């Protein structure tokens, strides 16, 4: 019970569900997201949905390393910042469209992640965590001091001249559509991963690193590939954030807090599950937005306090997160009433 995380409990039910049904469900959800994203007119709701989609993408990407791989990565802000800065710098210095800059940022982040993954192979648990924290600090310090390229602590602004070719839109819905696309990409990748060899290798690594390591090269490769994919997705999110907010600086895209948020949302939603991080993101973004709106900020820290408590409780008592709880409730209901089938 203790060492089994939720994914091993969910895996069989996923397999039990026919592939066709899962795909159909997936298509329906994605379709609904796109329709909502393009039809929504209230700008505030569009913004809220954008924040949720971005947060879900980040949490989902983090989950690949932290949830499936069980590695305590606390430095994903570095990749977020690298994505944001790479596309913005390429646009400002070489007039390269952020669409391509975004890919360049993702590639750069993936390469760095592979490098870090390779040199930290021997490090476990907290040591790995501290290395990733220190790595992010180094990136932040470099960005802060490389004034001519990054604008130092003053940061960079992205001009707002609506032109779809330059990833700049006159309406918010277009940004939202990009965010939905990113989220769909992230979660489709995790869903596929969970069902393929990569996912099983990661799972094995997490459950028993020593045994998996004795399998050798494959496990190492799985670890590096997952780290690279995760970093690339987070970097894409970084560019999206930069284009949407129109300004970036070391505090807004490279702070420790961002790394923590990704891990927090992923864990509260359900570590190592496919859609858990999305649930975590929905819960985090809506609750903070609602509390801010209700209390006009009087009790802003209360939100963090509640969230921290919830986080601890989830870690101690319900490591399946919100998703795990939902499944448990459903299972219990099913058992009691003896009907319905369990599929996620």
């Amino acid at each position, binding site marked *: 019970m203790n060492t089994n995380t939720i994914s091993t409990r969910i895996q069989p039910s996923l397999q039990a569900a026919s592939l066709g049904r899962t795909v159909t469900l997936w298509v329906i959800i994605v379709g609904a997201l796109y329709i909502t994203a393009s039809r929504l007119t209230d700008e505030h709701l569009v913004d809220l949905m954008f924040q949720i989609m971005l947060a879900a993408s980040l949490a989902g990407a983090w989950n690949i390393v932290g949830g499936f791989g069980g590695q305590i990565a606390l430095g994903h802000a570095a990749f977020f910042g690298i994505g944001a800065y790479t596309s913005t710098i390429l646009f400002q210095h070489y007039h390269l469209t952020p669409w391509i800059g975004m890919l360049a940022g993702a590639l750069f982040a993936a390469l760095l992640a592979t490098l870090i993954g390779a040199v930290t192979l021997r490090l*476990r*648990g907290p040591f790995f965590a501290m290395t990733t924290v*220190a790595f992010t600090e180094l990136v932040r310090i470099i960005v802060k001091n490389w004034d001519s390229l990054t604008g130092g602590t003053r940061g960079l602004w992205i001009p707002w001249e609506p032109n779809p070719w330059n990833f700049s839109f006159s309406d918010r819905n277009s940004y939202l559509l990009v965010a939905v696309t990113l989220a769909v990409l992230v979660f489709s990748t995790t869903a596929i991963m969970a069902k393929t060899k990569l996912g099983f290798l990661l799972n094995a690594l997490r459950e028993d*690193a020593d045994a998996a390591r004795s399998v050798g090269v494959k496990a190492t490769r799985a670890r590096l590939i997952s780290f690279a994919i995760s970093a690339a997705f987070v970097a894409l999110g970084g560019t999206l954030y930069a284009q949407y907010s129109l300004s970036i600086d070391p505090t807004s895209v490279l702070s420790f807090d961002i790394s923590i948020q990704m891990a927090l949302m992923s864990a509260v939603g359900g570590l190592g599950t496919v859609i858990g991080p999305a649930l975590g993101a929905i819960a985090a973004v809506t609750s903070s937005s609602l509390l801010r709106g209700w209390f006009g900020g009087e009790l802003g820290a209360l939100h*963090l306090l509640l*969230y921290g408590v919830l986080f601890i409780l989830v870690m101690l008592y319900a490591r399946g997160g919100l998703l795990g709880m939902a499944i448990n409730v459903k299972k219990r209901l099913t058992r009691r009433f003896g009907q319905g089938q369990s599929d996620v």
Partner: protein
Amino acid sequence: MDIFLQLLLSGLLLGGVYGLLSLGLTLVFGVTRIVNFAHGEFVMLGMYLTYFLWQLGFDPYLAAPVVFFACFAVGVVTQHLLLRKTLTMPHLVQVFVTLGISVVMQAGAQLLFTSNFYFVRPSYGNAMVEIGNIRLPLTTIIAAVLALIGTALVHLFLKKTHTGAAIRATAQDPYAANVVGIEIKTVYAVTFGVGIGCAGLAGALLAPIYPVYPTVGLAYSLISFVVVVLGGLGSLPGALIGGLVVGLLETFSAYYISPEAKEATYFTIFIIVLLLRPAGLLGLRGSETMGANH
């Protein structure tokens, strides 16, 4: 020459302060194998407690023992309520629970005390010790000296007392310790209590030097990580030596290279150490690859 000596002594004192900051972190890790990501927040707690006691008329150094025991109690309770359950769980859970504690403590401090800066200002706050042309602040000297004494006391406690022996036995092999009848749960609770007590004590001794505010802990956590990884996670003398190395590096690089260079200097060294000799200068080789439940 004066400048060199001044920098040397300032750096050593700063290093002593860092050693003091890191003592609790390394102790907790050495025994329970938990890296406490809320370490800096417990230092913050110690600073707030000292501030309020000072407001009530206590001298900060008289308040220090009170703060130590208060934090000891907080540590035991925290361990009992939250961390006890995580001992058999993966690292991820341990790290995340301590991260959760740090989030809660930060938010709590902000709700209770607002984001104001508080300063503890004893009458001797500006007192100096002068040796020739070299000038050193009294408060920093006290903090550094007490760091030495604290390390020695904890060391003695581990070596000379019954509880200490039990703690050491547990640190070496919890299963064997259990077999010979050591109540591991109590050992862990006491260790965590002492560790948090040390963090609180560090806070009390830092309070006359630095202001306290809700987010002050993060910087202290980061420095402590650098220090203990450098010295060797789990090693008491390692924390002190790591602290001195970081303190000297910071002071000299700030003067001879640039004040901005010092952060980059120590994070680079941190990463290099982690990569080349993750066990640190004095740590047990191989501890970085220790399995989940040891």
